[in-house]
């Protein structure tokens, strides 16, 4: 039996599964909670609404993200090196080749989006093409292709449906929509129904926000792992991450805000975390990512016996 140099990470998988379980539980809690306060039909309606909106976002994800980043698709003739690199990585990983896009911005970044591996887009900015060497760029592309292979857009969108449903409820309260529900049932405990709904949805929204960020960081770590194993060169991804995060913090805040909408899918976040950084950041810290890459490097370089 051939030996394997692929090391699993049980801890990461366990944490990720737990977070996804909690997010699912949150969704059920919201629907059941609504059903109990304002009636079963409406609870299910809101739940379906949340899922429906998430599915809509997911099916349009490539167009939404490409537009947010101002990216255009490029053909193999326009960017032969980039296409050649992705061709080889896809042949190594045995996955369908995604479309390739380039965004004209100096912020060095890359992202992958699209509803399925067959319909995916991998996009890089002109900034990242200038900053990175071809080895480092390959590491970044392998990371993005891993997002595609892991169907991260789908997983993150489904995971966010509780948050979306709760957000819709809060918005509804803003426009007084929930006021209409007030008269539907007598409540003996004195609290108006719309207030209960508002509080529940705010709590669900807050909890789902934190859990989603946690999930996003785990998915990033997974993509780093898979990407490093694909290129067999964790060092290149490590130096690319160091370069990108360094460059990113050197760029003025105003430019960064313009691209914040798509940052959850980028290789390094384009927004600077301010307070509550550990709870609310979409990406793990550089140290965590470098530590993991160092472990993979050690395993790949282990001498033969």
């Amino acid at each position, binding site marked *: 039996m051939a030996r394997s140099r692929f090391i699993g990470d049980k801890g990461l998988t366990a944490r990720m599964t737990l977070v996804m379980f909690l997010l699912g539980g949150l969704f059920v809690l919201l629907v059941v909670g609504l059903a109990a306060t304002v009636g079963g039909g409406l609870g299910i309606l809101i739940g379906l609404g949340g899922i429906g909106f998430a599915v809509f976002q997911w099916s349009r994800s490539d167009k939404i993200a490409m537009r947010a980043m101002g990216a255009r698709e490029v053909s193999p003739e326009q960017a032969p090196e980039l296409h050649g690199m992705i061709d080889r990585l896809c042949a190594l990983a045995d996955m369908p080749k995604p479309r390739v896009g380039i965004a004209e911005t100096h912020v060095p970044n890359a992202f992958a989006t699209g509803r399925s591996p067959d319909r995916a887009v991998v996009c890089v900015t002109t900034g990242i093409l200038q900053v990175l060497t071809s080895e480092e760029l390959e590491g970044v592309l392998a990371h993005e292709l891993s997002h595609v292979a892991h169907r991260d857009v789908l997983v993150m969108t489904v995971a966010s449906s509780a948050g979306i449903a709760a957000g819709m409820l809060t918005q509804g309260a803003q426009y007084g929509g929930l006021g209409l529900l007030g008269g539907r049932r007598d409540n003996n405990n004195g609290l108006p129904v719309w207030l209960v709904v508002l509080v529940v949805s705010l709590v669900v929204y807050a909890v789902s926000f934190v859990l989603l960020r946690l999930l996003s960081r785990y998915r990033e770590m997974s993509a780093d792992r898979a990407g490093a194993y694909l290129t067999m060169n964790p060092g290149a991804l490590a130096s690319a991450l160091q370069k990108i995060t360094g460059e990113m913090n050197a760029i003025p805040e105003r430019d960064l805000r313009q691209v914040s909408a798509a940052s959850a899918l980028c290789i390094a976040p384009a927004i600077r975390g301010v307070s509550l950084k550990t709870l609310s950041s979409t990406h793990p810290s550089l140290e965590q990512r470098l530590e993991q890459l160092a472990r993979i*490097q050690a395993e790949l370089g282990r001498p033969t016996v």
Partner: protein
Amino acid sequence: MAGFWQAITGRTRPKQADLDALFLVPSAAITLQTAIGLTPTGTGSVCYRAARGAGFADTQTDVLELIRGAADAPQVDVSGDEFGFTWLTVHRDPDDMGGLCTDLHAVNTTLELEGFGPSLLCSTVPFVDSAGRRVALVYLYKQASFYPFAPGAGGAAKQRDTLLELQVGETLAAEIPVEKDKARWLALWGAPGL
């Protein structure tokens, strides 16, 4: 189900290479010679990604020693390309296709035994006809399928001889698994022997 679980947990495993189909090359070579007049050039290459560190360097040394240590030791050389892949090329007598495939297979199995199977990209066996047209039979390890790659005449512009590629693909379709998805017929400009 396995794919679903891998997606949920974000743990796709590196795809292992499929090595056995490589032994179909000798019979395909005979077909190419009789049907299209393409003869083997006697070289064959394995293209892989070298991992960093001592583990891979040792393995590569082992591979070279293994091939050079054989009784009828062929000439072997190692080169790199601009995409960071390593090409290990074996030169044999053009008539000895069986020996060439055994050499290439020895490279693959050694890499796989040391846990570097996922780093294998492709293997090429170039052919040439009397008019000087060259075409390589490329084996994709992860898809376990073959495809032809023919650089166009002239060589200045990177243009492929698509008609020759299609002809070779159709000729061999009954004998070897030819890659059906043409998007995976990746160009290998500057591959050894082309």
